[in-house]
């Protein structure tokens, strides 16, 4: 096993032996399941659009709980120094934590594939928006996790990491509401930062390369900043 894979395995174990992962997944499933079932029974429409929007909001709320401890706890417990002196690159450490966090979040999102199965069992859903919706959730999760890791890399306090991450996510989620108040062309620039505006086309089944690129670029930028954050030894 390569050092990177060993690190990923270690991080995954660390995540899945803590009760936080199961609590987060269970609450996520309860909220999404309720939304899915009620919408399905009320509207009788074989679509997951509302589920995708709910899931996206929940990612904004839950990702800080997953990323807050990644570096902050290691920094506080003194294990970060040990990790940094091991024969692995800083980027490997960050990427391993990113892969582990994404693994947990994707497992959480993957459980909602049951909903697609239910739709397929009783109807013939339009699969295009379902594919793009899951792709959108994956990209959104990647962007959020990388930002969360960058914040976690800058502080030794889990709570501070969670609150700051939540603040950043909340601001990026709702920033499109502010855009309407700003003059042109600043409003367009601000709108371009909105996670909601960028995610919406994926949920509807109408994607843009620029939205894909935005999430991808934010993910890479977050990971890069997390690596630079490790410089604060």
């Amino acid at each position, binding site marked *: 096993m390569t050092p990177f894979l060993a690190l990923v395995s270690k991080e995954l174990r660390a995540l899945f032996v803590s009760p936080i992962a199961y609590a987060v997944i269970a609450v996520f499933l309860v909220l999404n399941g309720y939304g899915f079932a009620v919408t399905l029974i009320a509207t009788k429409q074989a679509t997951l659009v509302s589920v995708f929007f709910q899931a996206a909001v929940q990612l904004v709320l839950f990702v800080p709980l997953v990323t807050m401890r990644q570096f902050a706890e290691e920094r506080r417990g003194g294990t970060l120094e040990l990790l940094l002196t091991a024969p692995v*690159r800083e980027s490997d450490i960050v990427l391993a934590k990113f892969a582990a966090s994404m693994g947990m979040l994707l497992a959480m999102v993957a459980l909602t594939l049951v909903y697609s199965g239910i739709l397929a069992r009783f109807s013939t859903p339009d699969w295009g*928006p379902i594919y793009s919706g899951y792709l959108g959730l994956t990209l959104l999760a990647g962007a959020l996790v990388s930002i969360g890791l960058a914040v976690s890399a800058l502080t030794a306090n889990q709570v501070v990491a969670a609150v700051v991450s939540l603040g950043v996510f909340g601001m990026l989620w709702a920033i499109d509401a502010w855009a309407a108040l700003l003059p042109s062309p600043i409003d367009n620039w601000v709108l*371009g930062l909105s996670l909601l505006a960028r995610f919406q086309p994926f949920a509807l089944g*109408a994607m*843009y390369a620029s939205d894909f690129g935005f999430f991808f670029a934010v993910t890479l930028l977050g990971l890069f900043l997390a690596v630079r954050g490790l410089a604060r030894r």
Partner: protein
Amino acid sequence: MEHPELDWNALLWAGGWLAAVLVLFATGLRLPLQTGLAGWRGRAYSAGVILIALGAAVLANVALHLHDVHFDLTREKVYTPSGAAMRAIDEVSREVTVTYFYRSQDAAGRRARDLLAIMARRNPLLKVVAVDPDRDPRLAREKAIQIYNAAVVEAEGRRVLVQGTDETEIAIGIQRVLRGRAITACFLEGHGELPMDNFEYHTHLESGAGHSHDDASSQVVEMPGHGAGRLRRALEAQGYEARKLILATEGDVPTGCTLLVAANPRTTFLPAESAALRTYLRRGGSALLLLDLGFVLEPGLARLVAELGVRPEQEVVVDPLSHYSTNPEIVAVTGYDPHPVTRSVSLTFYPGIRPITMLSTAGDLRVTPLLLSSRDSYTRPVKPVGSHAVEPDAASDKDAAAPPVPGPRVLGVAVEGRLDGNSEPMRAIIVGDSDFASNSFFPYMANSDLLLSAVRWLAREERTAAVAARVPVPPLIVLTGRQSNAVFFLVVFAMPLLVIALGCVVWWRRR
């Protein structure tokens, strides 16, 4: 429906972009974390690296945005605006704001909102604000909007209102508001027409007051208290300009007149005026001729109208089957043959309308009946405006005792083509009534829709191809009560409990 092709060049660009960004990222990761620089130099190095990374991310996004690709994964391509709409958006060169009013519960309205968002992303000069007036009545009041599915298009102090959920119509509205040339409707005056600056109207309460729009009005030279001010206002709301035109003093129809409106002339034209109208149509002009009961056509005008393929009769249509209120002389039209003018028009009605006889025309002219009365309708003769008759009218001498022959009558026509080989293509709409366009009847039923649609067509602003409304309708799923309960139990209780159970097992084993 025509849709834009997938842009393979942009797709290749996106692939190249992805590779470039990954290379940049990999390069960035290789930068040393610790440089050995102490104090402010070390901090400046770190800050510089972060600023460069931020700059690279911003530039990468701008680069991709300039070569964006849109993928519509829906089965019926419901989130792909028509090619015509996208081309119109590409041509937008100045800032335009579209405020779209829709109901959140209306699927067609939601789709229009989403398509407008897609169009806005196509061109940063297009600003789109979507408003549910039930949730934000302030903006609806501000823009004087009282209907759902309406787009207020504004640019450079001009404003156009577009009704409907069709993105192509809204794109046409955008073109219209940005159009350099003004579209001017010239209201003909000088023959007792409905004045365009008169906003008076009658309430038309059923009574024995004697006020009438049917046969009893056919001998009246002037109808006081009537105007076409509401029609003019509606045209101005659409971004058109309106002006008066007195042909007798002008001598010719000015080149600035996009279309001519003759609404209820009561006194006969001068031969020179008829000649001026012919010259205008030969130049490729457009005319809306609302020729009411009793109006007598000057021979030159009668010849011109005959060349257009019609002859208004000195009769009134009585429709016992399809009429408005209790008066069979207020003919109601509920169905139309396909034509751009009547595509989205519902019930219209015509108080005292004369039938139009279709004549043969020269080869290039296309004459289309727009309005037809019901199969039970019949006609009876009316007298022309007596003191202004210039020639005896055969219709008025008909034997009034002759039994009426029921059958559909043509009430209005659209004419398109060249008057002769040397002329430009013209358009004309001729209707045997004008009351429906007056302030008293313009706002009721779909009368205003018909008139605005007619003016749009005459101004050559109509859509050439019908676009079917495509509303996203997700496939339905029908569950029995038992199945609903099973689904609810599975997703709300069983799955989360399974995860919690798994967590407990892990915790127990670790303990």
